[in-house]
């Protein structure tokens, strides 16, 4: 594995993103990180689906859960159970139910985009801030992605960056290391080094 190679690939990702998103945007991080996650899981090899003169809405997951499930979710997560220990002790389902729609996709379903979007709060274990900010920040992110959508090459390029990073051994690094690496690149001006081919 070449950690430097991975870093160089990610630096190119940041550079590309900076061309499409507001300069040094906080959005660079979640977009690039989730691209890396899916690159490692090799889900990029999907073929253009059978097209598809018929279009429809896709089903979602069932969001309404029984009280027992909500309690099981909070009690089963080490950090969340600490943060909501008072509510769990009191059996305050009203508060737990209100927090569930924001926290379950992040900690229950491990949505990499949302995890990256709320990384600051997750690192600070400020889970209540996530609940407060959730609706506004996710909607802001949706709007901020719009300029990137205008260029069809943008996602392809990002996909290649993710694939390159994956081929250089991204999967051998800890999640935290990859996140910190991207944050470091987003914060400072990206210094690019030549790409290292996968077989180097």
């Amino acid at each position: 594995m070449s950690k430097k190679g991975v870093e160089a690939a990610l630096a190119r990702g940041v550079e590309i993103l900076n061309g499409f998103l507001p300069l040094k945007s906080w959005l660079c991080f979640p977009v690039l990180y989730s691209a890396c996650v899916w690159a490692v899981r090799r889900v990029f090899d999907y073929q253009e689906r059978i097209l598809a003169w018929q279009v429809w809405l896709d089903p979602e997951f069932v969001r309404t859960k029984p009280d027992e499930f909500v309690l099981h979710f909070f009690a089963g997560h080490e950090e969340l159970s600490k943060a909501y220990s008072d509510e769990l002790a009191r059996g305050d389902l009203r508060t737990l139910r209100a927090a569930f729609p924001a926290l379950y996709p992040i900690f229950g379903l491990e949505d990499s985009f949302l995890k990256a979007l709320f990384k600051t709060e997750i690192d600070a274990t400020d889970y209540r801030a996530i609940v407060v900010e959730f609706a506004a920040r996710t909607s802001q992110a949706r709007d901020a992605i719009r300029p990137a959508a205008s260029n069809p090459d943008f996602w392809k390029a990002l996909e290649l960056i993710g694939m390159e990073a994956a081929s250089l051994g991204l999967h051998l690094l800890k999640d935290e290391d990859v996140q910190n690496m991207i944050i470091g690149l987003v914060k400072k001006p990206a210094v690019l080094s030549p790409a290292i081919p996968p077989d180097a």
Partner: protein
Amino acid sequence: MKRRLFPAASLVLVFILSAACLPHLRRAKQFYASGQDQARAFRTEAAVASWMSALDEAERECRRKPSAQAFTIKGLAETNLGRWRDAEASFLKAFSLGFAAGEAWASDSALAGLASSFEQVGLEAPALRVYSQLVDKSDFKPVLMTAAERRTNLILARAVDTDPGERARSLAALVKTLDRLLDRDFACGLYHYLHAQVDGHIGDLRRSYEEAVIARELGLPSEKISRDNDNQLIYCYDKLKEILPEAESKAFAAAHSGWTKKWGWRDARTPAWKKE
């Protein structure tokens, strides 16, 4: 043989020619479908980008040549982007223009989309009526699946705030509907997933576990639903281990261990996708 081939070839030709004449509509559908693929794989940002592009193309088509299909796709993209009021207006426009013969799928898609926008702006009763209608009548499976999921979700959300008797009645009716859907299509993983969710609300954890296992085996339409189904399995496993008599609990744990090995989980409570 030639006689049979000729109409088929003509049909393909008409299909190709229509595609060539409708570049914006075609591109809108391509972008929309690509967004669905991304969303199923849990790539939120890419999905949003594709739906934005689908919306741009659909808007162009609506300006160039307004049709029920064009407004349906515009409405579907708007629905996925959370623009409920715009979506509602687009679907209503689609219905006012009228769907041609052979466009029943588009009409059903638009109905489902319209119900979804009703739901998001707080009009739950009409949304529920539309979903129920689609569950009973639609022959277009993707819409049928979506309507079944949305109807289940709405009824469960309503049941939370009702008294126990009323709640039991509505959940029993929901189970009947899902049983009917399973009679029609037992191989549909989503229906088993929905059954598992409702069984969880009823407190029938054994049935919930079994349905979730079948759902996993048959496959689910998206990564997000699949992960939620895994969480349901873990929840049922934990609860059943607590309440089953010791001997039964051991046998259940052994069976569960067999399944999880097959699925490649790290242990009885940790699917492969969970962060270590």
